């Protein structure tokens, strides 16, 4: 069942929120030892929330569309009463005393928070291999990565442990895991969804967004979690774009679609490019007008990103110093505060986090700032101009979501550069702060693993993403005869749950 179908069944009282929640908790109990999507399963509080929704429905109180529908929450969102580790040892045991704005909104909408999902430490990575608590598995092939950093969320949705999940996208951390797990994931416009209570990796890039198994499901969650938040100064004070309506309309006739020249070529898996090309033809056959568009500065996006994001992270992660919360190492009465800070950070952070802190501290340091951080910001401006020029010609841009399908666990773990390339297609939208979605568009011939189609739209035109993605989804599903996820073979013996 999709989240939309679940919501409808709940509203018709064919099923209770408690039953739905129990079914998902049962599913988690059955498969999560293999998938390892969750760091913390909040069974008790989930059932309490479900009972509260059931009581409200019984009393005829007005309920939001997602009331009673379970959601898995990436462990980067502050959740009052539940642990929040960001996949790091340094926050082991921390229970935030407050809820993120999005956590609050989900609770107010009656969505059931099933638990906290695994992630690369502080959202730095593309595979969950950087989590301090083990790697999540791709339900299509348990030896493959589920993507990252929001890999726990994508794996949970793909493994039917949750109908919906939320994640954050800083360089592709929603779209890349969605693509490699064969589900839908959206990076909303920066400022369209609140960052308050989202533990910061790179403040000018971090964007919370939804995962679903269908485009409509993602749209429903997108609408529920988004909107202006006075607690986040960078939040946009404007109505949420009509994403649910757009997903329902699924009409691309007359739309101008641009294929980005620079997001193809060397390093792109042939099977990925084949599925992408078919999708573009399909959209054209549905009435869209397809042209090729050049964004010449996209080739500099990856290096610019790997200066800006580490610079911001080197500052954002300075607060983890053992003084107020989280891990404290070496406080045995013989060491001063500075030594305790250093020891805690040495032991509490993993290798990738340290790499980026050092990279960022270097890029910001006096004498190097102009050449690194300053230059990267200039590149960022050029990328924004590329997008502006492109959106002067077309309504949306498209590309593959990732250059390759899911890779084997361990395959790139010792090669940061290879790992960074997983975000090649997704990073430009993050740097520009506009909106993008990944929607499944088939399986690569080489490995039978899912391929994602990325659609990019101007800031606050998130509805266009859903219009295009829903049209592609409908046409492709029609061609396949059933949802793509039905092909997932990673959890043998589980049967066809779609």
């Amino acid at each position, binding site marked *: 069942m999709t989240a939309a179908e679940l919501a409808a069944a709940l509203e018709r009282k064919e099923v209770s929120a408690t039953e739905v929640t129990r079914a998902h908790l049962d599913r988690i109990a059955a498969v999560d030892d293999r998938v390892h999507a969750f760091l913390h399963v909040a069974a008790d509080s989930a059932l309490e929330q479900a009972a509260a929704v059931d009581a409200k429905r019984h009393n005829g109180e007005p309920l939001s569309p997602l009331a009673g529908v379970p959601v898995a929450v990436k462990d980067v969102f502050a959740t009052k009463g539940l642990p929040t580790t960001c996949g790091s040892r340094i926050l082991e045991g921390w229970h935030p005393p407050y809820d993120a704005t999005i956590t609050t909104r989900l609770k107010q909408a009656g969505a059931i928070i099933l638990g906290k999902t695994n992630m690369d430490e502080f959202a730095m990575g593309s595979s969950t291999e950087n989590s301090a608590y083990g790697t999540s598995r791709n339900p299509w092939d348990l030896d493959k990565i589920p993507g990252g950093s929001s890999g726990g969320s994508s794996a949970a949705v793909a493994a039917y442990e949750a109908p919906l999940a939320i994640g954050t996208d800083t360089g592709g951390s929603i779209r890349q895991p969605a693509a490699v797990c064969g589900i839908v994931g959206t990076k909303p416009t920066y400022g369209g969804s609140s960052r308050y209570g989202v533990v910061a990796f790179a403040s000018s890039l971090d964007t919370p967004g939804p995962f679903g198994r269908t485009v409509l499901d993602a749209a429903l969650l997108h609408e529920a979690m988004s909107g202006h938040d006075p607690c986040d100064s960078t939040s946009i004070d404007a109505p949420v774009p009509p994403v649910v309506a757009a997903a329902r309309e699924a009409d691309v006739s007359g739309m101008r679609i641009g294929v980005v020249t620079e997001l193809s070529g060397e390093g792109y898996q042939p099977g990925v490019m084949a599925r992408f090309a078919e999708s573009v033809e399909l959209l054209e056959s549905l009435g869209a007008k397809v042209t090729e568009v050049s964004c010449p500065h996209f080739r500099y996006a990856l290096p610019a990103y790997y200066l800006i994001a580490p610079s911001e992270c080197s500052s954002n992660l300075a607060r983890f110093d053992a003084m107020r919360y989280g891990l404290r190492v070496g406080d045995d009465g013989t060491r001063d505060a500075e030594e305790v800070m250093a020891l805690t950070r040495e032991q509490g952070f993993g290798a990738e986090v340290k790499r980026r802190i050092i990279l960022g501290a270097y890029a910001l340091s006096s004498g190097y700032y102009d050449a690194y*951080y300053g230059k990267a910001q200039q590149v960022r401006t050029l990328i924004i101009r590329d997008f502006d020029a492109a959106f002067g010609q077309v309504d949306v841009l498209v590309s593959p979501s990732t250059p390759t399908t899911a890779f084997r666990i361990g395959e790139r773990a010792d090669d940061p550069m290879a790992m960074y390339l997983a975000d090649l297609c997704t990073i430009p939208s993050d740097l520009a702060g506009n909106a993008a979605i990944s929607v499944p568009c088939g399986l690569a011939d080489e490995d039978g693993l899912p391929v994602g189609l990325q659609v990019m739209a101007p800031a606050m035109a998130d509805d266009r993403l859903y219009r295009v993605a829903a049209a592609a989804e409908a046409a492709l599903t029609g061609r396949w005869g059933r949802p793509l996820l039905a092909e997932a073979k990673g959890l043998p013996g589980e049967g066809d749950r779609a």
Partner: protein
Amino acid sequence: MTMETLVPYLEAMERYEPVIGLETHVELGTRTKMFCACTTTFGAEPNSQVCPVCLGLPGSLPVVNRAAIEYTIRIGLALNCQIASWCRFARKNYFYPDMPKNFQISQYDEPLCTDGYLDVDVDGRTIRVGIERVHLEEDTGKSLHVGGATGRIHGAEYSLVDYNRAGIPLVEIVTKPITGTGADAPVAARLYVTELRDLLRSLHVSDVRMEEGSLRCDVNTSLAPHGASQWGTRTETKNVNSLRSVERAVAFEIERQAAVLDAGGRVIQETRHFHEDTSTTTSGRSKEEAQDYRYFPEPDLVPVAPPAAWVEQIRAALPEAPAARRARLMVDWNLSSLDMDAIVNAGALDLVEATVAAGASPADARKWWLGELSRHAHDTGTELAALAITPAQVARIAALVAAGTLNDRLARDVIDAVLAGEGDPDEIVEARGLAVVSDDTALLAAIDEAIAANPAVVAKIRDGKTAAAGVLVGAVMKATRGKADAARVRELILERLS
């Protein structure tokens, strides 16, 4: 600690020319903190005025306090500065246990106010102190180092941190180098801070209490031989927390640096700590090992762009500058600058002005506030303005004296009664029957009694020695328990005996 070699001040002045500069931090008196809604009351229970934002909890985000921006603009305009039409906050990165985020949100190369001045009167000479910049930042928490001899972190057994102060808006006012003051440099430094303090007080932006740390000074001093083409190397003396200390810190640095230069040495560019008890400075960290703060624009905040119309509105509402006001009142009240200084130093200017406005003569208002009332304030350890008597009440007492209803002694009794909360002067006069006995028949009886009892004195007076009448006046005053008008009594006695 080795004793510093010093050159006597006047001797140092024979050979060297000082250049000084001041950085003043002012805690703004906004109701809430810089980036959150916590209150700012001084002296509250430690860590009782904190929230996720000012504690820098993971995920929390700052939102700018509009009142703090307005106060800073007010200060900038009063200091004749340019107000930026667009500027950003920046992060200043360094680790310290009382810094919740291990970075301070401050301003770096884009301060809100730049390029102003403040005129300071030094011994009748006006010195125009250039203002380099006025910028806004957040205060840090406060560490209490327990154990150890120095009260500093090194050598302490343990430290406690109070985060109530963390996030209180702090304005930093930086002067341009102040040259040409010669031997007056220490006095000029003190008078600049005094003038600045009075200005800030008149703007109602801060309570500017140096003893509570709401106004703190760093003092830069350098020396160069007379006629040198270049300035000397400066030191920055921190922890200078009273007006007197500002003067002493500059004087000490002049004496110390002169000794270094006399010996052919080189002044080290360094931070020095001022010690209130000995009026000396000691070496802190030198600039060579200074931190690289890795400033970069604060990505969690949007730029500040105060509309020109708002700035003009603030400018139009600025109160009269203290110097202009003093000059005006000196003329209006016919006071010498010494008299005016006495009023200002007693913190009585507002009170005297209000008392004059309530009808008292300037001389009377000054007499009561600087005399009897200052004594009360001193005896009870309160500030003049905090006494339980209003300017209107003081004016009324002065009027009763002028009308002859009260004499000075009775007026003092009325003041005591007002301070004791017995009501308004007229009520007290009525209730206590304190009015001067003005009924001549009642007085004449007492006079006749005094004449009869002092035949020798009467004889002297009749001989023309009218000064002897004092004895009779004293007797009458005693008989009427001070309620008589002594001048009238004297008049009546002389009439009687003529």
